[in-house]
C-alpha cells in the first residue's frame, strides 16, 4: 500500500466515523470467561455463542411480533438458562477428570450444535435489531456515535464493578471465591459447590446474552458471529490474566481499540494476525497474563 493511499484512507470521513465503532464485545465475552473460570476452573469454550444466541433470539422475538423489551428480556433469560443447562450436562460430568479435554470438547460440541441450529432457524444471512438507540447519533469530539455503541463498554465496566462488589460483600460472591480456591474445602464448609458453579455459568451466560442483545442494533446479527468472538474473548481473558476481572476488562477495551487501528491501517486479516500474535507473545513473557496472579505449585 502506498503512503498516499494510506493517508487518504486515514483521513477519509468514512474512516473517522468508523473509528468510533470500537469492538468492545470481547471485553464482555472475556468477562464471562473470567466468571466461569473463577468458580469452576473450567469454561464454556463456546461462550461466544451465548452472545450470538442473545442477539439472534432478540431479533427472532421481534420478528415473531413481540415488543422489543419483551423480546430482549426473554433472550437474556434464555441465555442464563442455557448456561445453567450447559454446566449441568456438558461440564459437570467432566469436571473431576484430571485433564481438561472433556469439558473443552463437550462445550465446543454444544457450540457447534447451537450455531448449526441457529443457522437453520435464523437463516444464513445477517441483519441488525431495530432499536431506539441507533436513531440519532450523538457527536463526541466531532465523531458521530450512536448511544448504543457506548452501552457496551459502560456495561462491561459496570458488570466488572458489580462483580467485585458481589465477591466482597455477598455470601454467594465469597462462596464463589472459596469454590475457586479449593472445591473440596468449600464443600466441607457447607458450600453447595455444584450450585455455585452452576450459578457462575448461568451468570456468565446471562451477561453474555445481555451483551449480545445490546450489540444487536449496531452490528449485523448472524448465526456464525459467535465462534471467532468467543475465541477472541478467550484470548483477551488470557492476556488480561483470567483470574482478574479488571485486568480482563482493561485488556478487552484496549484490544478493541487496537483491533480497529490495525483494521483501519492494514486489513481485517492483519487484525486477526496481530491480535492473536499479541496473545502468544504475552503468554511467553507473562505466563499468568498481564494482571493475573501466579499460582503456587504445591508438592
Amino acid at each position, binding site marked *: 500500500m502506498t503512503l498516499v493511499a494510506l493517508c487518504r484512507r486515514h483521513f477519509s470521513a468514512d474512516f473517522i466515523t468508523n473509528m468510533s465503532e470500537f469492538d468492545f464485545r470481547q471485553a464482555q465475552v472475556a468477562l464471562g470467561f473470567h466468571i466461569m473460570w473463577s468458580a469452576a476452573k473450567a469454561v464454556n469454550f463456546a461462550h461466544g455463542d451465548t452472545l450470538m444466541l442473545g442477539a439472534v433470539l432478540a431479533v427472532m422475538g421481534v420478528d415473531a411480533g413481540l415488543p422489543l423489551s419483551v423480546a430482549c428480556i426473554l433472550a437474556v433469560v434464555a441465555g442464563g438458562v442455557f448456561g445453567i443447562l450447559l454446566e449441568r450436562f456438558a461440564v459437570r460430568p467432566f469436571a473431576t477428570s484430571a*485433564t*481438561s479435554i*472433556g469439558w473443552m470438547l463437550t462445550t465446543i460440541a454444544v457450540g457447534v450444535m447451537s450455531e*448449526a441450529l441457529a443457522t437453520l432457524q435464523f437463516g444464513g444471512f445477517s441483519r441488525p435489531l431495530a432499536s431506539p438507540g441507533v436513531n440519532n447519533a450523538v457527536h463526541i469530539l466531532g465523531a458521530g456515535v450512536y448511544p448504543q455503541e457506548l452501552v457496551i463498554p459502560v456495561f462491561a465496566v459496570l458488570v466488572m464493578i458489580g462483580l467485585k462488589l458481589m465477591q466482597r460483600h455477598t455470601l454467594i460472591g465469597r462462596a464463589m471465591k472459596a469454590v475457586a480456591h479449593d472445591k473440596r474445602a468449600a464443600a466441607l464448609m457447607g458450600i453447595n459447590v455444584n450450585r455455585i458453579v452452576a450459578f457462575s455459568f448461568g451468570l456468565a451466560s446471562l451477561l453474555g446474552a445481555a451483551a449480545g442483545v445490546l450489540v444487536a442494533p449496531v452490528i449485523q446479527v448472524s448465526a456464525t458471529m459467535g465462534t471467532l468472538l468467543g475465541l477472541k474473548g*478467550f484470548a483477551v481473558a488470557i492476556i488480561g490474566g483470567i483470574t482478574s476481572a479488571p485486568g480482563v476488562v482493561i485488556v478487552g477495551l484496549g484490544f478493541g481499540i487496537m483491533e480497529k487501528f490495525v483494521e483501519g491501517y492494514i486489513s481485517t486479516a492483519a487484525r486477526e494476525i496481530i491480535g492473536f500474535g499479541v496473545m502468544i507473545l504475552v503468554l511467553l513473557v507473562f505466563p499468568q497474563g498481564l494482571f493475573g496472579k501466579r499460582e503456587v505449585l504445591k508438592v
Partner: protein
Amino acid sequence: MKYLIPAGFAVFAAILIAVPLLASNEYELRLFMLFLIYGVIAVGLNVLVGLTGLVSLGQAGLFALGSYTGAIVATRIGFDIIASSIAAAIVSGIFGVLLAFPTVRVRGVYLAVVTIAFGIIVENVAIEWQSLTGGTTGLTSIPRPNVFGVRLSGFAFYGVLAVALFVITLLVHNLKTSRYGRTMLAVSQSETAARALGINPTALRTLAFVVASVTAGIAGTFYAFLNSYISPDIFTFSDSVRFLLMVILGGAGSTFGPIIGAYILTYMPEYLQQFQLWQKFAYGALLLLVMFALPRGILGTLHQMLKRLRPADPVPDVSEGLPAATTLRRDHNEVAAELVANSLTVRFGGLTALSKASLRVKGGEIHALIGPNGAGKSTFVNTISGFYQADEGQFELDGIPLTGRRSLDIARLGLARTFQNTELFGELSVLENVMAGYDQRLSYRMLDALLRTPRMRREELECRRTAIGLLEFVGLSKYANEEARFLPFGLQRRLEIARALASRPKLLLLDEPAAGLTTQEIDELEEMVRRIAALGISILLIEHHVDLIMALADNVTVLDYGQVIASDSPAVIQNDPRVIEAYFGTSPIHGEIAEAGV
C-alpha cells in the same frame, strides 16, 4: 494380547494393498487417499493427545503451514514430493517447537488456546501475504506429484501415501512402546513424580507437540499435491476440531484408533451431504456422543471389553528379574553419598518456614528428620529435592552443589524421593511405574526408539528385568500387571519406594513412609529400609513414628519452628529436654508452675 499389534499391522497392510485393486472408480480411490492423509495427521496428533494428555486445536494451522510450504517449494523451486514433504516437515516442526516450548510449561488449557490462535494466524497470513500464498484465491497449478522428476501415476501416488501412513503408524507405535511413550504417559499422570525421577516434562511435551506438527506438515504437502489447489478457507477452526475428534473417536493412545477415527470422519461427510444444513449439527452431536458414550474411543472401549473377557496376562516370572542387590549396589569406591545442607532458609511471604537449618547425612547411614507438625520438615524435603528454592544457604550431595538446580537435575545426580501423599502414575501398571523410575539410566535416543535398534531392545530388556527384580525386592511381584491406582494404600507406598530405587539413587529420601500404614506394614517397612541401607544407599527418613525412628536411625535431626534444635544419636535425642519440650509443649518445671497457677 501379545500378537494383537502385529496382527493389526498385517491386516492394515492387507487393506492398504487391497483397496486400490478393488476401487471401482477414480473418485473412490481419491477419497480413500484423502483418508490416508487425514490418517497421517490423526496418528501424529495421537502422540500429543493420547500420550501427554494435551490438546491441540490448531492442527489445521499446522496442516495449512505444511500445505503452503510444500506447494510453494514445489511450484517455485520445483521440489518433488519427497523434498517438499521434508521442507514442510521442517517448517512445521520449527513452528511446533516455537509454539509448544513456552506454553506446555504452564497449563494444558493454554496449549489449546495458543494452538487455536496459531490456526487463526496461519489462516489470515495465507490471506494477507498475497505475493507468496495467492491470498484468498489460493495457490493453483500445483504440479502433479512426482519423485525425482518422474511423474507419479494415480496408483503410484496412492502407493506413496499408503506407505507413508503405514510407516508413520509403525514409527509412532515404536515411540509409544519405548521410554518416550512411557514417560509421556507418566508426565500426563503426575508431573511432580516425573520430575522427582529425573524426567523432563517440558522436553517430552514439546517432543510430542513436534511429532504432531511434523506429521501435520507432511500431511499438508500430500494434500496440496492431491488437490493441486489450496486456499485459506480449507483450513479452519472446525477442521482442527475434526482432527482432534478423529483421535478421540478412534481411541486416544491406541495404535490404530486414530486411523479408524480418520476413516469414519473422512467418509461420514459423504453420507451426511444429503442432510445439508444438519450436517454441522450432526457433527457436533457426534462429538458430544463420543465424549459421553465412548470417552475412551472405539478401540479403547473394545480393549476394555477384551480385557474383561480374557484372563489377565500372566505376571512376569520372578526368575526373569535381576536381583536388586546387583542392580542397585554401587562400587565401594564411589559409596559416600553424603548430603550436606548448610543453613538453609526458606521463606513464604512473611513466614519463615525454614531458618538456617543445617543437616548432614553421612554416607550409608539412615538419618531421621523429625519434628512436630509445621516444623518445616516438608519444606526441607521439598527444598533439597529441588521443588522449592532456598532463599539462603547451600546444599550438596557428595560435594556436588545442588543449590538452585531443578528437581529433575537433582534426581539425576542421585537423589530419589517418595511423597507424603503418594504420587504414582495411576494408570500405568505397577511394572511400568518402576520402569519409568529407571528412565534416567537408559541411554538410547529417539532414533533408537523409532527403529527399535538392538541397543534399544537391550536396554529395555535390562530395564524390565531390573524392574521385575525391584518388585520382588519390595514384595509386589504378583501385582506387576495391575494398574497402580488399584493397589491398596500400603502397597502403593512400597511401589513408590521401588520406583524411586529404580533410578539407583545415592540417597533415598522417604517422606513419611509409615503414615497411614498398619502396625504389621510398619514392621515390614522397617525391614525393607534396613535392606535398602544394606545396599549402600544413604537414607533420609522423615517420620513421626517414634518406634520406627528409634529402631532404624543412626542419627536424628529435630526441627522445630524451622530451626534445627538437636542433631544426635536416637538415644541422646530421646532425652534431650528441648526435643521433649518441642513435642510435649512444656518442660516439667513449667508444668508445675502452670498447675500451681490453676
